[in-house]
């Protein structure tokens, strides 16, 4: 009888003395409820009969919390909140309302703090995250939150959340804060789109006007150049002609000076010889004849020299 009790005692003792810690985790060993040490993954020995107890904590694994939305099929109970619609609604620093969705990536780094310092560390981190995000968004304008300030918000929120996690002794390290959808409230969204459209309209008006400018001004410039070139052509022509004329004149003048009278008479007669046959009618009047005018106008048919 005592032997059976002893064997049973030994079996239970052995059975409760060995335990394994899975990978990615570390074991926190308590003796009579008091924390004594941590162990790495693998097979380990402890005191039996409930003297030592072990808690395995998954450290190093990236954990995620979602705010303002909920992805189904999660294993971490702290991943989603109870009311995502309430989480996303915030007031901005210009007293507008905005809907923000974000996620938080964190790891458990100090398992004894995570286990013993705070009850509900996951929920506490959620509270901190919501509070900090509203603090950061509350210091920004709605346009910053929606467009230009996103990265700035992520960085500022990350720093604040780290600070708070430290202060609350959570034993976690906040690795990343990422903004997801950030939108104006549903009834206002149309008017935000209207602003985008108006922006496009502005660009369009400017483009059309620039098109009109580009259509006419370069052509006018070319036309102006053409006129100037033409004037320059006129200049060459005028000067060259003048010089040509003068050269010709000088040549003739030289001969004229040698025999002025003869040359003059020759040119005069040559000219009249050329010119008179061209005329429709030639009338030769004696110098003594007076009153020639009453005879005019002459008939259109050519007449032989009168008198």
């Amino acid at each position, binding site marked *: 009888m005592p032997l059976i009790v002893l064997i049973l005692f030994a079996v239970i003792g052995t059975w409760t003395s060995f335990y394994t810690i899975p990978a990615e985790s570390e074991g926190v060993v308590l003796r009579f409820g008091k924390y004594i040490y941590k162990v790495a993954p693998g097979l380990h020995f402890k005191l039996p009969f409930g003297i030592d107890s072990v808690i395995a904590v998954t450290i190093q694994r990236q954990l995620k919390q979602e705010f303002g939305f909920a992805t189904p099929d999660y294993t971490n109970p702290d991943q989603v909140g109870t009311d995502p619609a309430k989480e996303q609604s915030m007031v901005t620093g210009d*007293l507008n309302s905005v809907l923000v969705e974000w996620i938080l990536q964190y790891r458990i780094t100090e398992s004894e703090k995570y286990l013993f310092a705070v*009850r509900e560390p996951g929920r506490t981190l959620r509270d901190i995250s919501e509070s900090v995000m509203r603090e950061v968004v509350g210091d920004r304008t709605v346009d910053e939150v929606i467009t230009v300030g996103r990265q700035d918000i992520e960085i500022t929120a990350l720093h604040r959340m780290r600070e708070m996690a430290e202060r609350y002794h959570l034993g976690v390290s906040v690795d990343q804060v990422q903004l997801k959808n950030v939108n104006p409230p549903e009834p206002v969204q149309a008017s935000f789109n209207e602003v985008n459209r108006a922006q496009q309209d502005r660009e369009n008006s400017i483009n059309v006007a620039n098109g009109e400018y580009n259509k006419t001004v370069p052509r006018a410039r070319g*036309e102006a150049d053409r006129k100037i070139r033409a004037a320059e052509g006129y200049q060459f022509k005028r000067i060259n002609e003048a010089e040509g004329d003068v050269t010709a004149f000088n040549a003739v003048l030289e001969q004229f000076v040698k025999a*002025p009278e003869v040359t003059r008479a020759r040119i005069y007669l040559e000219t009249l010889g050329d010119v008179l046959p061209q*005329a429709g009618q030639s009338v030769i009047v004696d110098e003594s004849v007076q009153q020639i005018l009453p005879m005019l106008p002459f008939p259109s048919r050519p007449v032989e020299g009168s008198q």
Partner: protein
Amino acid sequence: MRSMRSLSIAAVIAIAFVSFLSMYTVNQTEQVIITQFGRPVGEPITSAGLHLKLPLIQQVMRFDQRYLEWDGPMVEMPTKDKTYVQVETFARWRIKDPMHYYLRLRDERSAQSRLEDILGSETRTAIAKHELIEAVRTNKARQPLLDESLTGASTGVGTLGVLHPIRYGRLEIEKGVIDAAAQKLGEFGIELLDVRFKRINYHPQVLERIHQRMISERLQIAQRFRSEGEGEAARISGKKERDINEIESTAYKRVQEIRGEADAKATEIYAKAYTQRPEAADFYRFLKSMETYHKIINKDATIVLSTNSDLFALLKRIEQKSGD
């Protein structure tokens, strides 16, 4: 002998039983006070591990040693500027003095309800003392980043991209709540780690008006963009006209200069040639007259020449001779 043995076994069992009753463990997350007939005795035990007490007459009261949560419900309240908001607050606290805590509150449920009373009313007071913006913003000095595309071309009219100024800010209001509540909660053996606003949102009825304002603000921006576009287009069109006039008139001016220069130069060349010596001017006039005859006499012209002219002088003389 036999009865001695069974007696000793009974004694061992009794000792084991008594010592089992007089031992207790304190978990790492716990703190403990010992009560004797319902009355606390000795100092609270905050160190984890195995401890001893008197069996049967002493009881173990266990309390949490960790930071505990308090998540306030959503409460509607007005701010100083009469805006109705919905506020949710959370706090983290700890049982610092389990003796006081046990005597005044007994358990966590009544602690939660006391926290609710005190923090709820302090929050309400703090919110009512300040304008909404004070509870929303934090950093007094912060200048907002400007969205270039929204404020780009001309500086905007209105409050767009402007943070409302504050005097205290969210953290100071929170600190006010903590300071006021910490003292009151201290009497219950509670230490307050932090109180923070988790959510502050407009009351749904106010929200509708906020949306209206946001819409009108956006539409005003849209109008400004359109007007800017039209203004810019008009400016470009004006520049177009200006440039065309400038180009054309500059060209005209240049053309006139060049032509004038050309004419002047030609005139100079001619004048120089025709005045080089006295006969030149005379000869030029003669030549030019001759040349002009070529130009002005055509088939429609009638020429009346006197017999006294150089050409016909001979003709007259011969006639005179025959007549004599």
